[in-house]
């Protein structure tokens, strides 16, 4: 028989492994490609002294040596310097600037999703509005991003990189992320269908007859599924954030990942991909822990009912 704790524990295990596995896979893929890693990362026709660079970047001792040295430094917050995007600038400093911006962007873009999802599950949002949300969601993030970038440029002109402009960039970016690529439509219809299906369960009707509220009965049973949906939506937003940050020139993890990929800055890509892996792992661990909490809560319930006392 399947144990209730198995799936949450698998999720927590994967969450712990993810930040270690992502740089490991990238490192071994670099070595698996035909040719010398140092030449792949910095082709001799572009960089002089590839051997010297290989020694400096720790690429001359094989993938295991590179990975262990990189991880040992990474756990102390040392990610080395950018190789091409901002040559010589410490990556830890770049990540220190980028992470808060990305987290802020994602949290702000979650606001409309959570508000509209809650409204739809409570029945305050008519299903007749779904086609509208779906139509809005058909437009890709890059198109909305283009419009948002133009608005910022036209509004701020030469001051487009001030603190005020950054705040507006974050707000517009969050709005774009929240509605583009079907994010809002998916959140609204997904949450509503979950609650609608659960409301039809017999136990909910019985609970209402006992004088209990619908939400207090359905929510514990739906919490795991809602956490799963929230994780999926946040991953979707993180994926879109790469485009939005690059289009709106927000210094976030996604923007650095994009610039690192474009300029073949292997060190920056490794660090930012690991940063994304840490965020994904945190989401996965949150889902696992919530599942454990809900399972324990459901096993304790019904807490207020005592048959002996009632008799």
């Amino acid at each position: 028989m399947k144990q209730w704790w198995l799936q949450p524990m698998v999720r927590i295990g994967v969450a712990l492994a993810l930040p270690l596995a992502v740089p490991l896979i990238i490192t071994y893929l670099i070595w698996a490609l035909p040719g010398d890693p140092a030449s792949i990362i910095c082709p001799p026709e572009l960089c002089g002294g590839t051997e010297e660079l290989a020694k400096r970047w720790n690429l001359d001792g094989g993938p295991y040596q590179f990975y262990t040295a990189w991880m040992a430094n990474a756990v102390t917050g040392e990610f080395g310097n950018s190789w091409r995007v901002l040559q010589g600038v410490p990556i830890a400093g770049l990540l220190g600037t980028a992470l808060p911006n990305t987290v802020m962007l994602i949290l702000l873009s979650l606001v409309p999703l959570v508000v509209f999802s809650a409204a739809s599950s409570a029945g305050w949002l008519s299903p007749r509005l779904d086609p509208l949300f779906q139509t809005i969601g058909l437009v890709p993030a890059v198109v909305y991003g283009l419009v948002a970038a133009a608005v910022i440029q036209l509004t701020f002109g030469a001051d487009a990189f001030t603190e005020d402009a950054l705040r507006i960039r974050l707000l517009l970016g969050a709005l774009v992320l929240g509605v583009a690529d079907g994010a809002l439509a998916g959140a609204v219809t997904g949450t509503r269908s979950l609650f609608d299906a659960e409301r039809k369960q017999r136990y909910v009707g019985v609970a209402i007859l006992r004088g209990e509220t619908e939400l207090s009965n359905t929510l514990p049973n739906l919490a795991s599924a809602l956490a799963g949906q929230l994780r999926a939506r946040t991953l979707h937003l993180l994926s879109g954030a790469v485009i939005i940050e690059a289009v709106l020139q927000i210094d976030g993890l996604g923007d650095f990942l994009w610039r690192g990929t474009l300029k073949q800055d292997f060190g920056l890509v490794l660090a930012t991909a690991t940063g994304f892996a840490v965020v994904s792992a945190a989401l996965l661990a949150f889902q696992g822990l919530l599942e454990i909490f809900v399972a324990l809560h459901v096993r304790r319930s019904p807490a207020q009912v005592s048959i002996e006392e009632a008799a």
Partner: protein
Amino acid sequence: MNKRRLALTIALTCVGLLLLGSFTAPERLSPVSGAEYALPMEAPPFGADARGRSLLGYALQGAQIVAGPAFLAAVLVGLLATLGGLLRCAGSERLVTIVNGFREVVGALPRMVVILVVALLTPPEWRGLGVLAVFWAILAAPGAIDEASAVASRIGGANFVEALRAHGFTRPRIYLYHIVALNLRPVIVRHASETLMQVVFLEVALSYLALASDEPSFTHLESFHSWADLLYMGYTSLILDVPTMHALLLGLGLVGVTAVLSVSVTASARAR
């Protein structure tokens, strides 16, 4: 004409336009002197860019860049979704567990992060939208497999197959007609058409970002022009007042046609 037939007609028209564009795309776009910034009525059908190159050429070259990889990704997702549904009906618990594990691992990271890492690691001679489209399809597959599997469970899974066997139907007929064609079709087609649209939008996004950074895109050759070029021209018309608004409208129109293609394909395959 009923709704499904109408949707099928629109879908076939959009697919036909995309394929026609991809097969008739010119190798190079030649500038025409005197046609700089020509509007659609001055240089039909869509006008010209700052160097007098026809915007029709941009649209056709963009179609050629996206058509093959987008259809490849759609077919791949469709096949994997079919496999997911059939595995559920075959009643193989071990395979279902493996597929679930695959889904958990693949779904753990944001798709765009994986795509950019793949773009970084792809050797220059293999670089193009094709590789990225295949990876996008693999990343999109778990959702499709999951839903196809759920549909197969709802119709009874292995019990459904046994019931039809008892009625004397052959296994190929049960799996291919009763399960895939009658029950899984809406899910498979919807996921495939969504993936097709997403791959087109992925190309537009990556090319747009490369253009904005003044770097070559890793989705196509430098001599080719993506639909993102049209959007970028439109962006410059918005902020610099360059007379290329017609390019933006064409770019948005092509994005719209892609979205209509996806929606109409889905609608045409909807269950009766």
